Structures are given as C-alpha cells and as structure tokens.
C-alpha cells in the first residue's frame, strides 16, 4: 500500500511545516516547488494524494489541477487533491473544487486538520 504524498508548494516554510507534519505520521513527502514540476512528478511518481498550493510562480494551482485531472495517466483522474490557498481572492474555494480538487483548506493550515484531511483518503502509516 503506497503512502506517498506529493506537495506542490513554492514557499519553503510551508513546505517544511507540511513535511514535518506528514513525516511524523510515517508518510513519504514528494516535493515540487512549482506547478510544472508538480504535474511532471504526479505523472511520473507513485502518488497517493496531492497537496496543491493554488498560488504558484509559473502556472497556478487551478491549471495544475486541470492538467492532472486530464492526464493520460488514468490514475490521476481520481487521485485525491487537497487545495490550499491563502484565500486572498474571491471564490478561491469554489474555483478549486470546480477544477477537480476534492477538498479545500485555507492557510494557516492547522496541523491536526491536515492530518485528518489526509488520513480521510490515505491512512497514516503510523
């Protein structure tokens, strides 16, 4: 059973926070620092769940979600995606679900909620 979480996030502090939180539960974190790298990793790695920041430096998270959902790799049509944003723009939450994300979370990310959201899709290894 795989336990790989792909985190697509350009902010190193947020990445570190997520890494500490998820590795403490036994998950393996795959890190992508921009949208294109995230799409590439989703298509090439064994990924069980994707944490997707919406505000990325190249293509935004909405476009990342669209490309992942439309990927030729069939598995990515149903791989869970949790969208994460600073929620500074009207309709961020609604838009993220419209492009195929499963869950929406706004920053700052409460760690207990993050664990619960991830574990709802991928049981924690420990």
């Amino acid at each position, binding site marked *: 059973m795989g336990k790989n979480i792909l985190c697509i996030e350009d902010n190193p502090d947020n990445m570190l926070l997520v890494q500490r939180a998820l590795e403490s539960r036994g998950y393996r974190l795959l890190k992508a620092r921009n949208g294109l790298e995230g799409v590439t990793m989703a298509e090439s790695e064994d990924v069980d769940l994707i944490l997707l920041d919406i505000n990325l430096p190249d293509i935004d998270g909405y476009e990342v979600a669209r490309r992942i959902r439309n990927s030729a790799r069939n598995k990515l049509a149903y791989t869970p995606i949790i969208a994460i944003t*600073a*929620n500074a723009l009207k309709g961020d*939450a609604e838009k993220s679900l419209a492009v195929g994300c499963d869950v929406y979370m706004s920053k700052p990310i*409460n760690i*207990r909620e993050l664990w619960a959201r991830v574990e709802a899709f991928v049981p924690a290894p420990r």
Partner: protein
Amino acid sequence: MGTGGSLRTGPAMTSYQSTFVLYLECSDCGKHFSTREIHTFCPDCQAALLARYDLVAAREHLDREAISTRPRGMWRWSELLPVQDPANQISLGEGDTPLLRLPSLGADLGLSQLFLKDESSNPTGSFKARGLASAIAMAKELGIKKVIIPTAGNAGGAMAAYAARAGLQAHIFMPKDTPRANITESRMAGAEVVLVDGLISEAAGMAGIKARAEGWFDLSTFKEPYRLEGKKIMGYEIAQGFNWELPDVIIYPTGGGTGLVGIWKAIAELAELGWLETDKRPRMVAVQAEGCAPVIKAFQQKASFCDFWMHAHTQASGLRVPKSFADRIILSTIYESSGTAVAVSDEAIFKSQHEIACREGLFVAPEGAATLAALKELIQQKWVVPDERILLLNTGSGLKYLDHMG
C-alpha cells in the same frame, strides 16, 4: 468563593500582580509561550494560543464581592486579563452591559426565565469593543505600532476606535458590502480602510499577506491571543449577574466564535477560582445563518473541525464567516457543554429582530436576533423546557445595519 480582600487593596500588591497571567498555551499541543513577547498562533500546530493564569494564587488573593464594588467596566477584572501595566488598560467604557429579563417575549414563548445580555451598549455599539480593548492594550504594552484586521464589520470599527485611543496606526480589510456604518466609523477614527471584493475569509487572506509584507500586527480572530481575553469577561459578568449561579442555556450567534469560546473559558476559570455556587454548567448553543452554517454542519456530522462553507451568504454580516480559525475550539465547547448548533434563515432573523423591538423595546443586531429565531427552533424540538433559565446574547446594535433593511 475567595477569602482574601481585593488584590488592588491588599497590602502585598506589586505592579507584577496587576495580572495573574502566567503564559500562553497552544490549544493543540500545549506548548507554552511568554506573554512578554509578541506571539500570534502556535508556529508548530498553527493553532490558537490561550492565555493561562495562576488561578490558585488568584483564588487566594481575589474576592468576587470586592471586584463587584470596583468601578464598573471590563477592567474591574484586570487581574484576570493579561495586561501588566495598568497604564496600558485602554478603555472607552466597555463592559458591564445590561442583563435584561425579557418578560413579554418569555410569556409569548411560554418561558418563565428568559434573559438577554445586551452588548449594544458597548463603545462602538457591539461586543467587539471588549476583544479589541484587550488586544489593543496588549499591542500597546508589547510596543506594537501598527495593527491590521480583517472584519465582517463591527470589529473594524472597534479596532479603529481603540487604536486611535492608544495612538496606534490601524489598517482594516472588510468586504465591500459591509454595513456603511462600519466603514464610516472606521475611517472617522483614522483607520485606513480597504474594501475587499469578497467575504471576511478573503479579507483575512489579504490582511495576512499585507501584515507579513509590511510588518503590521495581525489582529485576526484567534490569530492573536488577546481578543479572547476581553470577550471572556462576558462570562464573568454573566456569572455575576446571575448571582454566581449560571443559566441553563446560553444561545450565542457564532461567526468567528470568540464570544462562545470566551464565555466557556471564563466558566472554567470561575470554577477554578471557586466563585460558582453550583457545579451546573450552561449548555452552549451556537447559532448561524442557513446561508453560512459551517459549525452546524460539522456538529451534525460530529466532526472536530469545519469544512470551508462555499457560497456563503446572509444579511447578518457578522455570521458570514465561512470557516473560523478556531473551529476546533468552537466545536469542542459545544460538545463539552452538551450544547447544540442551530441554523436559522435570514427571514426568521429579521422577523425575530422585529419581535424583540416590538415586544421588548430593543433594536438588536441581526446576529443577536438570530438567537431568538434559534430559541424558537429549540422550543419546537423540546430541547429547552419552560422553567429553564435561558440567556440570549445580543452582540450589537441594530442601528449599524440600517442600509441592510427595507
């Protein structure tokens, strides 16, 4: 009950003893942080910090009756608030709001003991004055010069007023359809107001980005520890007003949830102080609008946190909060108190607002009126019984919302 005299008149008082605050504690992991340094929320858990007090010492040195004889207002409870230097107790006369019996509405509903705590008499016309008085006082004490807040309305006006009083620069982000009174009062007090195309959640996102970029201190609900402390004094006043025997039910309009959580925190502190006459605790009821009811949905699902509420809409602007930063604490308060959560329609809110004005002479805020609408639901469900002591919380004045009324 405490046995000693009031600390303020006691012979051993030092400036340090102006408060019994000990430290801040993460509401998730329990890690401690100093109240003498600037903190927002727990950097590890990203959860709210709660102020903790030496209640054993407070029990020894404070006397509830002596406090009752002090000058009226929130700061009469200063030892149970976090401010060290009394010179930093910024005040515009907040607190000690009326606790009113509602005899006519009670008779209409078949309830013999129906009460309302009317927070509209606070400075700037709402309960937000309490939290912002406390938060601005602590900001001043910690040397902060510039503060920023996202708001659904009333918190902005209160923050602007207290910041002006304290000589701090105020920056406010609020939805562009916020009641005009809130926009005007904020600008009148010298605050820079940015109107946001979105809800308080988007205002919070923008304020957070601005705060990080400019170094302004973010006073968002539960993202700093001290607004809760001012709000909790409502709980102390409720206990005092009911002669230290708490009501059976407290019905509270819940947006960000600071008041609900604050009252419950106060009750826990009161119990530790030994000031309550009985062990009975009120059942806490969270009320939200049908168009924005994340707490009700989570409660019904027995969840420990809320989903972000999509397409939030209600004319009760203070209830238009798609997800509180402290949703876990709000829900645990309801569960711990054997309370419940009720969603009401805008139509029911405005009908109740009219009823409270016609039957009791109180022009309450829509959020306050929502508590009466919820009470009617609870009577239908037989969740309350006729002889229980039931307290409604009106959070503000209806006069702030005139442009939302026909």
